[in-house]
């Protein structure tokens, strides 16, 4: 560390005061330069995070091995909660729905976002053509749940719009049956999220170096071939991030489902995050709800690790 001190320092106003004269140990030097209370600057952050994020996390892991209703003291239950998870039909529905969410919201908003970005990139008025896709981003997850819950309600606005255009689904109650209710909510989320992905991809396209594209054009590549062979590989670091973010967010889908359907009817549109909330705070099974939360965390962790490893090995293949 001391070697990083610029030499300029010794020729400054107080020559040698900090470096030459007092240099018996690194600690001594650091204290002179940085003061005694360096750790005081990190303490608020470390304490807050430890107390309100790490401690509850560990507590939830413990509670997942107990029977607990929030009133009487928690009693040790071993693996009983996890064994019960295996035989819970609502949980299977939640896992299935969560997987549909993961597939749907990593494919649709990312794919359509990329499409809009590529189509609108480098043409006159591109920013204006992108505007309709950016507007819905104003809505929060709860806001989307609220307005789409209304639009999608049985015999509601969307049914009539479908009927007006003689499209199928005019008489289908869109939020009443699984897995249709999950699919239409994914479409609602796609409506909201395409904008931010478009923006990210436009920034990505702008930061692609010109030379490889010009070289490929000289070689005669254009249109789809140019995109597939040159642009898509150059975008892949960004795509990795965008898909990764969508993946993790989709595993935790809660707001839009809770506000639009509360996981119903009959728990058919629940995701893991909704199941956790319902089991805990509606059914007062704090231990069981904690086990669902742990499951959600494990699934999120495993999926993230698999995704990152696959992306890394893919990049190694491309580079080597």
């Amino acid at each position, binding site marked *: 560390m001391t070697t990083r001190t610029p030499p300029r320092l010794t020729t400054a106003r107080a020559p040698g005061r900090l470096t030459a004269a007092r240099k018996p140990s690194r600690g001594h030097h650091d204290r002179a330069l940085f003061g005694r209370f*360096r750790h005081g600057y990190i303490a608020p952050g470390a304490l807050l995070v430890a107390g309100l994020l790490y401690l509850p996390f560990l507590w939830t892991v413990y509670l997942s091995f107990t029977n607990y209703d929030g009133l009487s003291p928690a009693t040790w239950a071993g693996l009983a909660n996890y064994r019960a998870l295996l035989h819970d039909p609502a949980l299977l529905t939640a896992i299935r729905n969560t997987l549909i969410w993961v597939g749907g919201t990593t494919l649709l908003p990312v794919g359509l976002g990329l499409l*809009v970005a590529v189509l609108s990139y480098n043409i006159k008025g591109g920013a204006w*053509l992108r505007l309709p896709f950016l507007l819905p981003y104003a809505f*929060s997850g*709860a*806001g989307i749940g609220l307005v789409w819950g209304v*639009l999608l309600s049985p015999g509601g606005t969307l049914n009539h719009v479908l009927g007006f255009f003689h499209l199928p689904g005019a008489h289908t109650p869109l939020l009443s049956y699984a897995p249709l209710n999950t699919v239409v909510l994914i479409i609602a989320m796609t409506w909201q999220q395409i904008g931010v992905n478009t923006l990210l991809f436009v920034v990505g396209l702008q930061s692609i170096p010109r030379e490889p594209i010009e070289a490929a054009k000289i070689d005669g590549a254009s249109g789809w071939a140019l995109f597939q062979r040159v642009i898509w590989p150059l975008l892949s670091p960004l795509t990795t991030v965008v898909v990764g973010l969508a993946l993790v967010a989709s595993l935790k889908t809660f*707001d839009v489902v809770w506000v639009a359907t509360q996981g119903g009817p009959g728990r058919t549109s629940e995701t893991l*995050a909704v199941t956790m909330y319902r089991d805990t705070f509606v059914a007062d099974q704090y231990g069981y*709800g904690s086990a669902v939360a742990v499951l959600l965390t494990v699934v999120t962790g495993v999926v993230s690790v698999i995704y990152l490893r696959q992306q890394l090995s893919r990049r190694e293949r491309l580079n080597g």
Partner: protein
Amino acid sequence: MARRRAVTGARVLVLVILGLIWLAPAYLIVVNAARPAGAYNPAHAWVPSGSFDLLANMRRAWDAAGLGESLGSTLLYSVVSPAIAILIGALAGFSIVTLRLRHGFAWFMLIFGGTVFPSQMLLVPLFVAYSRFNLYDTRFGLILIYTAISVPFAAFVMRNFFTGVAFSIFEAARLDGASTARIFWRMYLPLSWSALAAIFVLEFTFTWNDLLFGMTLAQSPGVRPVMPAVSALQSDVYAGTPVPVALAVGLLVSLPAIALFLATQRFFTRGLTLGQL
């Protein structure tokens, strides 16, 4: 050349068609939110009503659902928590990068690791602990958790930002006799305002849009943030709240975050690029 023009034309055409599909729900929401509260009929939802009752519908929700109180509290949380979190995150980044804390990266990982797990892992203990320590349904309790959840991201950006600040600034100020606290407060904080602003916008939006912590840790209308209030509203759309009012609420609660984003857009992109240094 002709072929190229045809390709561009096709691109515009696809974008316009997709754009119209994307505008349709927005149109339905705005038209029906502006409809007189009693005049909603799903069969004619796409026909404008001719009158503009958007503000009346918003006012009606404001009064009936106690949304006014919720909005005030939410504004308090969304301003105060990110502000404190940014200060704490900047302090942490400053100590790790500029004060060259020993095991600085381990400290950083400790703080940043706080955002890795899903919020669901925090809910039960927070609910139980908040009930026990009289923090449940208090504004202080919500500010506390929103601050804690905002610290890791603030520390992440500020650590990156301070890495790009020349260390000689610190040394020069020290040689002039300035205390560490003074150097932080008078030099490093003002220096990083664009990054601070960018973090603030993102964390304001996050706090404003939060549903989960708000509905778990508060219940009374004056304390509960606005998104849980909105979700309670939806539960009785068919029983009580008329559709135009519900849609007007959906627009109303979306306004502050988007207004802040538009107002700060320029600093925002600049701050983010700086944060990535």
